[in-house]
């Protein structure tokens, strides 16, 4: 799905194609709980979430990281990804629509590999930040 992409084609400051996910359904929390094995009831049981002081269930942070991973590997082939890290900055709730954006912050040849570094951010429809992160990928060269 990710198109062939070469080191020479990428410049510092380039934007990663934006990806929009959602609105998120509670059903997706149930699917993600089963797939990931994270059965913390905070994500699937409104009564439990209310008992600990929230309005209702919140999304698995790893689901939102999964959205960011989807956005990255729709652009850069999965096999080129070397490193991917995020900081969870805020809670995401059902009904939120999450937009993932990113940009290239550095490119360099390191130990014979053509490395690009990018920063990524996931925000909801009010531009509240849910995730900030970065990734590194080793891209093929045209040469």
């Amino acid at each position, binding site marked *: 799905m990710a198109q062939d992409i070469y080191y020479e084609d990428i410049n510092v400051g380039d934007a990663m194609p934006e990806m929009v996910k959602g609105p998120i359904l509670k059903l997706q929390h149930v699917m993600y709980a089963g797939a990931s094995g994270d059965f913390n009831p905070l994500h699937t049981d409104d009564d439990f979430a209310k008992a600990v002081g929230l309005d209702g269930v919140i999304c698995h942070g790893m689901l939102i990281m*999964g959205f960011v991973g989807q956005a990255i*590997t729709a652009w850069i082939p*999965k096999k080129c990804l*070397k490193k991917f890290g995020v*900081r969870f900055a805020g809670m995401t709730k059902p009904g939120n629509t999450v937009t993932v954006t990113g940009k290239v912050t550095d490119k360099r040849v390191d130990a014979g590999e053509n490395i690009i570094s990018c920063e990524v951010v996931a925000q909801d429809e009010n531009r509240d930040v849910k995730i900030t992160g970065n990734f590194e990928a080793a891209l093929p060269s045209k040469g």
Partner: protein
Amino acid sequence: MADKSKEGKEYPPIVWEVERGKIRELAKAIGDPNPIYLDREAAVKEGYKDCPASSTFFTVPMMWCSSMPGVINDLKINFAMVLHGEEEYEYYQQVYPGDVITGKPKIAHIEEKTSKSGKKMDMVTVEIIYTNQKGEKVSKARSLLVERK
């Protein structure tokens, strides 16, 4: 406070056989339509041996083997007060259906911090190094857990 003397402690390994269905299930739960996770032929066409595990797949063995809850209990952290602060992966090679991966969890770091509002928090970094059935390193996962007080 999480028990600082546990820094460096290693936990029993997680052993996990990677199934094709689980790779697909995780992609579907995320809503990722990338055919490399769903269709072996599409993956081969893009240069993979088979459907690769996606970029956040390592959460699956970690959660299904209950390794993180085990670490949290051992550190006597209040489960209800734990936030997942950060998650990071380094990828050394692809993981495919049929691979048997072994993860070795370790407490990399424990630190007490004070937030701007003056609240104390324990920051616990857990590292898991994954190897495959050939003993080759496939990935390193780093999770930062934050215990609010």
